[in-house]
């Protein structure tokens, strides 16, 4: 849904609608793919959170390019076994990370001092071996870590990801607030989407820059007022359901044989990557 292409560069209302729509679409897609039957989808959320976080840490610790490349290959294999399409990975992670980090990494090819490898004709710029290596580290690390993070959130319902954070001894209050926030993000995204859609349908003619700014800021203000109103309503609803300041989380996790095997596999792979990547 490329609204911005139809409405031109200055059309901030359609572009904001598109951004809000994409965020909602991403959340719904994640719930959909988490429900399918792949390898990672069958695992306990706590195993996935600890296993994939361990691999992300091993990626950060590795000081050899081939080790990071091997973790990336493992992530791609896990995606294939979990029925996550290459298209989804490419559109969500690989291409955006390549564009963003690639733009940052390219100048490092020339700016990093070291042994000259190639001189760009006409520009007197020299690609150095150290520049090539550092750009490789940056790109591979970003791609690998982002792929592993995506695997977690597209194979696990979001509420379970947050509950599983308790394995890291994160306080229950923080986890409960995270859970509430993730739910209300969807509600506020929808509210903001409706606000901008209705504004778009009422708008006739052209808006000047200052008017556009005024409209964006007023929309943010209205959304904030609604947020506070909703906060009051939620508090009353919590009280009506017996909330007296104590936070409990329903823990419906149960480790099966496959989970223990997967946990051992993740631990062995992460340890091997840390050892090989020293």
């Amino acid at each position, binding site marked *: 849904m490329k609204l911005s292409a139809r409405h031109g560069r200055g059309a901030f209302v359609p572009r904001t609608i598109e*951004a809000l729509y994409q965020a909602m679409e991403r959340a719904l897609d994640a719930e959909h793919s988490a429900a399918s039957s792949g390898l990672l989808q069958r695992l306990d959320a706590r195993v996935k959170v600890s296993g994939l976080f361990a691999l992300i840490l091993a990626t950060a610790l590795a000081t050899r390019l081939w080790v990071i490349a091997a973790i990336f290959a493992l992530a791609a294999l896990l995606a294939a076994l979990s029925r996550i399409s290459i298209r989804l990975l490419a559109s969500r992670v690989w291409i955006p990370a390549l564009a963003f980090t690639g733009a940052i990494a390219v100048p490092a090819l020339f700016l990093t001092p070291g042994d000259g490898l190639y001189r760009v004709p006409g520009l007197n710029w020299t690609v150095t071996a150290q520049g090539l290596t550092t750009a490789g580290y940056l790109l591979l690390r970003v791609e690998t870590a982002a792929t592993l993070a995506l695997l977690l959130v597209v194979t696990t319902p979001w509420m379970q990801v947050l509950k599983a954070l308790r394995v890291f001894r994160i306080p229950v209050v923080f986890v409960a607030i995270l859970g509430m926030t993730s739910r*209300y993000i969807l509600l506020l995204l929808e509210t*903001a989407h409706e606000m901008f859609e209705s504004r778009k349908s009422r708008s006739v003619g052209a808006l000047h820059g200052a008017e556009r700014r005024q409209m964006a800021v007023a929309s943010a203000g209205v959304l904030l007022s609604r947020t506070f109103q909703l906060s009051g309503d939620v508090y009353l609803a919590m009280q009506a359901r017996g909330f007296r300041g104590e936070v409990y989380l329903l823990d419906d996790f149960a480790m099966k044989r496959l989970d223990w095997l997967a946990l051992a596999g993740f631990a062995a792979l992460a340890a091997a990557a840390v050892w090989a990547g020293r």
Partner: protein
Amino acid sequence: MHIPDGYLSPKTCAALYVGAAPFWYVALRRVRKALHTRLVPLISLFAAFSFVIMMFNLPLPGGTTGHAVGIGLAAVVLGPWAAMLSVSIAIVIQALFFGDGGITAIGANCFNMAIVGALVAYAVYRILAGRAAIGSARRVMAAGLAGYAAINVSALLAAIEFGIQPLLYRDAAGAPLYCPYPLSIAIPAMMLGHLTIAGFAELTVSAGVVAFLQRSDPSLLKATAGGSVEIGEPAAGRNLRPLWVGLGALLAFTPLGILATGSAWGEWMARDFSNPALRREIAASSFHYAAPLRAPEGLARLSQVWTAPFARYAPPYVRSAAFGYLLSAMFGAGLILLVCLMVGRLFDRKEPAT
């Protein structure tokens, strides 16, 4: 601004988690004490609001657009401790579910934006707003500058974290293992975008929403206003008079520049090198390194290319140095205002009909 995985070493990330931990601890203790109040849903919903506000494409002067983070607004409405938790939660959710910022870098992002950003925003807001009424224009300005300062201090911290990576972490062949750019590149590269686009997006949202709340729900601004501040009447329209008065005062004081003694380092003219008195001033401002007896060849050649009409802020046809300074200041300020006006007119295009 949201640092992804791979840009910072695990040691830097661990250090920033450790740096953030005491602030989270204190903030959570405060929340635990107030669990029976409406603080829990308020923090959750404000975090959700911060997340959604980042999706807004804000039209900025000059025809560009930017995204705000909402640090300034969170600090102004919730106060520093609740703002820390609220923005931290938004950052965790962005990193986990939306790939905006890395998982290993959550500590760094929270330290830069949620903790330091919230503290800076709150301090700037309280200092600048003082005891002004809730509905005063001064609070709008204070909120805008609080957001602007917070986002820029956060960006500076991120730039320093990037810039120290190549100093500390390299492989055996000397290739940087993480962010490859030193401080001399990382700081200007980060600050350029934040002092302009991102800073103005944050300023616009913070000031604009506070102005909106002054009209619609001023009680929301009461929590961080301190003591017995009057709600007062909201500021009407865009009152630019204080800015014009300030600009006029600055212009009137420009002749004070004449009182300054010594030489401005690096602003020497070709003929200064052959003047003994000026040579002594150049040496005094250069750790007593003696200047060459003649101007360097390149400097001498290029100084002939253009002769400024108001060289050294002293138009040749004005005898009074003070009046020359004042005239130069008026001409310069007028020229800048004219250029800004023309650029604004040029880029302030109309929104296409929808």
